[in-house]
């Protein structure tokens, strides 16, 4: 399916996004191995209710990202309303109130561009429903750096501008109807994790063929 061992999932969504995010996250098991980092456009003065809603719809832990927080595997992080969410080289979060990007704060582009600093090519980026073109620049840069891009089919999106902008911005890897995105993500990540184990197995097979995993 691909040759990358993924280490993070980033998702951008806007109008209609809460329903779409619930659909994707509900397809994932409680031991999903990667962090999932989400920018959903929200009203600037909305509270942290989004994390609670999403947590009730899936088996993963969901929280609002904190400033300087170290990103942990298997967690779902939401950008706080009215702040941009950025990822540092050391895989921790930064926040910023610099001006709106694509009329949005948080902006999908800001998250995606800085995800490259922390995760290089080991990123799966997903663009879901949304009524503006935020995320286009971000997917282009992630793709240029070797990451993997999944976009919701514009026809299955409540608002199709964001998926269309992403598809126009770069040669995306997969365009899927909403209900297939979660299970595809799981399959993609599992195959990437399996590769990591295979590599590990092969490395030790010269000295001890049965180490560390028995067939």
């Amino acid at each position, binding site marked *: 399916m691909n040759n990358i061992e993924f280490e993070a999932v980033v998702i951008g969504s806007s109008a209609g996004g809460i329903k779409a995010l619930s659909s994707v996250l509900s397809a994932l098991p409680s031991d999903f191995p990667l962090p999932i980092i989400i920018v959903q456009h929200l009203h600037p*003065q909305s509270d942290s209710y989004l994390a609670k809603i999403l947590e009730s719809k899936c088996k993963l832990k969901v929280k609002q990202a904190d*400033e300087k927080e170290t990103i942990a595997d298997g967690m779902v992080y939401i950008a706080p309303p009215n702040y941009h969410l950025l*990822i*540092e*080289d050391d895989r921790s979060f930064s926040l910023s*109130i*610099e001006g709106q990007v694509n009329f949005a704060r948080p902006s999908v582009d800001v998250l995606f561009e*800085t995800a490259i*600093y922390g995760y290089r090519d080991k990123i799966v980026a997903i663009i879901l429903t949304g009524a503006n073109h935020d995320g286009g620049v971000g997917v282009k840069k992630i793709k240029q750096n070797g990451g993997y891009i999944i976009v919701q089919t514009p026809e299955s999106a409540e608002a199709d501008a964001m998926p269309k902008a992403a598809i126009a911005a770069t040669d995306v890897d997969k365009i899927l109807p909403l209900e297939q995105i979660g299970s595809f993500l799981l399959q993609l990540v599992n195959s990437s994790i399996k590769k990591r184990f295979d590599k590990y197995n092969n490395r030790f097979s010269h000295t001890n063929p049965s180490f560390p995993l028995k067939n």
Partner: protein
Amino acid sequence: MDDIDIQNIELQLLLQAIYLKYGYDFRNYAKASIKRRVQHRLSKDGLESISAMQKKVLYDVSFFETLLLDLSINVTEMFRDPKFYLALRKVVIPHLKKYPFLKIWHAGCSSGEEVYSMAIILKEEGLYDRTQIYATDMNEIVLKQAKDGIFNISRLKQYTANYQKAGGQESFSNYYTAHYDHAVMSKSLKENILFSDHNLATDGVFGEMNLIMCRNVLIYFNRDLQNRVLGLFSDSLPNDGILSLGSKESIRFSAFSNNFEDVVREEKIYRKINTDKLTK
């Protein structure tokens, strides 16, 4: 080592060059935001690499001034986070009324919107005439804007709504004069505000304060610089002095956590406590 590693080296060198030539110290800023803004300036100006930008920064002062504005984030609004200002009015102001004379420091005041917000609250609460406000920023261009107190009229509708949500009872238009597309803040708000150049990364304490406001500034700093600045604040406050940070900032994971207690936890309003007692 790939291109991203090389860019990280180039970025470090650029920040070092800026510091050595101009004295502005971004070396302990959180990197992601700086790097992103440098990259955007790079593609905007068609420069081929951060190294090329470094040369330009060293030899072209006007280019540096452009970059300085890129790097220092100057986005603010009046009564930003109305809930915070409501808490300020209800909880902090009664505490401040105990003092015969007040000193308030707005550290990193940017173009001054939050300073004027404070001045309005102090006026309405009858504290303004016994208060000296120090409003500081490292960037002289935004400091000049703050001093002028002239804001784009298009934002006044939102500021008015914020003011009302923050517990404002008056007509907000009492505080400014509309002039074409600008709103000029009332002179009476400026009388007790001293605008001055101060860099949190390199400058020291300049007086004892009753209240320090530093909202959405620390988020741009790394842990070391955050600790330096919080140390500066701790040294500038007497016992019972108030420190207020941005709603996503916290003193709890810093080296100075034990010097402060919560006043309004969710609004990040802290009170300095008597640390002598703690060590006994």
